[in-house]
């Protein structure tokens, strides 16, 4: 059996808010092999997004272990996590999170620039063309539809050929038809690059496109099909 790409062991994550400490993740265990597609289902507030934040190094666990691509995320500092993300992780958000004052091309070039790529624009243009936006590369996000913006976000996430792609409700702000187009693109790119995918979604139909599903309930993870905690 090959080494898992993602290995989470007894992950706890608490946040301190106005009303006191909130335990978001309570002893999560998860193992994902390379190239696997996993959907994370669960009600709002269950901790799905927080799990993605922990997997990407955007949130520090309170305790437990998070290993991605052989890197223990709990032992490296903020800049180390940034470098880790640029090399191994692509993220797609529900609200797209593009830079509104940068063109589509510039948005997609960003992670390549941070990793010191020599010709980021060329690779970015190829990624956008693959996403069906070859004729919109100089458009600003405000000039694109929601679906187009999400496709730009996908291009940005995949342009570094990440080992792991994290998608947080990528079709949450899109209509069904547009969402379908976006998800088709997502899975096409995933298959092309052999990327491991973790998809957070409410949509059971969308979840069924993944090989495996897990369900988050009150900060605890349960396998829908297959082993889990």
């Amino acid at each position, binding site marked *: 059996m090959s080494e898992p790409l993602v290995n989470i062991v007894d992950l706890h994550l608490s946040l301190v808010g106005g009303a006191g400490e909130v335990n978001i993740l309570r002893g999560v265990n998860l193992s994902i092999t390379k190239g696997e597609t996993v959907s994370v289902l669960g009600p709002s507030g269950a901790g799905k997004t927080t799990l993605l*934040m922990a997997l990407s190094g955007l949130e520090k666990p309170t305790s437990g272990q998070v290993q991605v691509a052989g890197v223990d995320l709990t032992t490296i500092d903020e800049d180390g996590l940034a*470098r880790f993300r640029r090399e191994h992780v692509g993220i797609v958000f529900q609200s797209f999170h593009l830079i509104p004052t940068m063109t589509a091309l510039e948005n997609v070039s960003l992670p390549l620039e*941070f990793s010191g790529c020599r010709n980021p624009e060329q690779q970015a243009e190829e990624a956008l063309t693959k996403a069906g936006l070859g004729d919109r590369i100089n458009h600003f996000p405000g000039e694109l539809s929601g679906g187009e913006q999400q496709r730009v976000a996908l291009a940005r996430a995949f342009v570094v050929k990440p080992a792991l792609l994290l998608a947080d409700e990528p079709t949450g702000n899109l209509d069904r038809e547009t969402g379908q187009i976006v998800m088709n693109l997502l899975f096409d790119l995933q298959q092309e690059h052999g990327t491991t995918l973790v998809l957070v979604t409410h949509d059971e139909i969308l979840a069924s496109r993944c090989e495996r599903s897990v369900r988050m309930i009150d900060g605890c993870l349960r396998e829908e099909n297959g082993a889990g905690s």
Partner: protein
Amino acid sequence: MNSTSTIAQAIRLVRRELRGGLRGFGVFLTCLFLGVFAISAIGSFTESAKAGLLADASALLGGDLEIRLAHRELPTEGISFLTEQGQLSHVATMRTMVVDIDNDKRVLAELKAVDSSYPLYGKITSTPQLNIHNELDSRDELGALVEAPMLSRLDKKIGDKVKVGDAEFKIKGVITTEPDRTVRAFNLGPRFMISLDGLDATGLIQPGSLIYHAYRLRLPNRETVDQLKAEMQARFPEAGWRVRSWREAAPRVTFFLDRMNLNMTLIGLCSLLVGGLGVSGAVRGYLDGKITHIATMKCLGAPGKLIFTAYLLQILFLGLLGSTAGLAAGATLPYVLKQLIGTHLPVPMTPGIHWQVLAVAALFGLLIALIFSLKSLGLARLVSPSVLFRGYSESGNRNPGTAVKVSIIISAMILAALAILTSSDQRLAFWFISGASLCFVIFRFASTTIVKLTHLIPKPTNPSLRLGLGNIHRRGSPAGSALFSLGLGLTALVTVMLVQANLDDKINETVPNEAPSFFFLDLQSNQVESFEETVRNLPGLTKFERYPTLRGRITAIAGKPVTMAKVAEEVRWAVRGDRFLSYAKEKAPDIKVVAGEWWPSDYAGEPLVSITADLAKGFGVGIGDTLTINVLGRDVTARISSLREVDWSTLDLNFALLFSPGVLENAPQTNIASIHVPAEHEETAFAAITKQFPNVSAISTRELLKNVSQTLERIGTAFRSMAGLAVLIGFLVLAGAVSADQHRRIHDAVIFKVCGATRFDILGAFAAEFLFLGLIAGGISAIVGSLAAMGILKGLMKISFTLHPGTIITTILTGVALTVFLGLVGTWRALGHKPASYLRDVN
């Protein structure tokens, strides 16, 4: 919806908006406050000082009316006439040397001889407090009151004796206040006060001595002074006296105050213009944040007119708030200054509320608020409801509409007209407004062009530099605002500093190399031969000049009385009071005739006069026209036979008016001389001449220039402070722009982190962005400021201009440091944001 209901509805909207407080308007209010404060403070100070001068007018003048003559006393009939009108007092002043009897040390002094009626107004106070007339004219000895520097320069104390001319005086006390001591920028020597009998005893009064006699009158009712003045001029039309009433007590001071007020108000206006950028940035940022609100209101049926009116009223209200605070601070400044440093102020101050000054300052503030808000208000009116569906607002410039553009132009023209019409020198104000407008256009063009040109710079491979450069030309970037605001403020500072530096050069470096070492005044005609022999024996002598000299007043130009002639502002000094005159047979080698011809040395025809070319231009006269000068009560009309070019900056002996031989020889006169000796021989020269000729006053050029330099430094400090205010406002505007951009920076920083940027990458990108901006702002301000300084020095002041690289570099570094500092402060806040919580909140 009619206008009334639109306004009523707009007011309702404004009240709701203001419930959220004044958040986001810190820079707007501060910029308006500072700009309006600057203008109202300067105006209030000037008017309070002028009120103080008016309140003390009679004391300052020494009477309700003053008749002033040079060289001679008032004739008996004049004295009789004046004595009938009121209480008369006679005062005589001149410069002379005071000698230490023990060691022959000599100090130049401003001698004043007073009679028993002096002072008619106010009090002389001294240490110890004395009955001055008893002390100055006691039976046993002649006494003197001196200013403190006299004691220190001669190393004397109260009770010691000194000599003036042929008489010895005992120093009885130190003057602490002298009510009619004219407020002057600088004095040539400390005061030495004696009685008129004491003056007689000195033997200094010789025919032609440079002595001024002032006869002051205290009237039973000082309001009748104008009537009396007219009566005197009718009764003694040819007298050649200079008559001043209490209303003109300190004309030079008033003139100086008006000049300072004008110049500093113009710089204050410059600060307010820079502040307008802060207003513009704040309003733009505020309305950008309201786009969703506006779009929602439009979806619900609000017309664009209502949106425009509501936010316009809000801006005007806030403008009024900021301006009122500025006015309050400016209006109270004279009170505060009087309370804190009243006795140290160079002019008397009667603080008051000067409504005209405040009204003008308030109008400036409101107009600035309006001009710099209209574009954003116009764009707000055009916000489309579709914004709600797209999520991102449309970026890029849009046209606010012709009506808005026309309104901006009209408001700007009203502002310019107000600045010009309320100025005491409308021509200067017009040129200033034109220059400031040109600067605006230059910076607008430069900032737009440079931002676009950054597109053409090859993209660096380093991600931080690449991002930083990209940020400059990115939409919504504060680059334009930074270049504009900081650039304008730094330009004002560079201009003022370069002008100051060049003036300092002129005085400290250029002039002493060429200037005479000493001037000697009051050399009698019968002393000329022995004086010249003494001078020629001085060691190291390189140059010696001597001219006979008298005092006279121009009374007519080309046949027209001077009060009716058109005289250009820059030569008005020539018709204000007495001028030094001279005559010469031969044309001295350094006299440069540029028009007409010098008279032959044996000339014996009609009176001719050679005048300086700039005087001729200012008077509108040329070769063949006439000038009438009153010399000791006699009118002399001479024909202009030549024009000369004179470089006054060398301080060589020269005269604006030089007469041909045969006109003035018989009038009482003295001589003025100058010598050039190396510095190491100056003391020897001074001792040799003043010992042999005790009646001759010696003025050291070095001391004179030091005095002038100190005065210019004080004035320069005031101007630098105002220019510094412009920089401060520019800094605030930039801070506002960075602050308004904060939300975008936080968002960008989070996304950069998601995409794998380290903190160093992000910090580097923002630092690079602001470093570029600072260098560009500093560079442009260095160029524009240098050009402006050159224009002022060469065009207005007619003196040479030298570039000061040190000043330029300091300015560029200041610009860079300020910009980078602000940028990093803004970045620090952005970096501190945790990406996860931000993303979670947004999601």
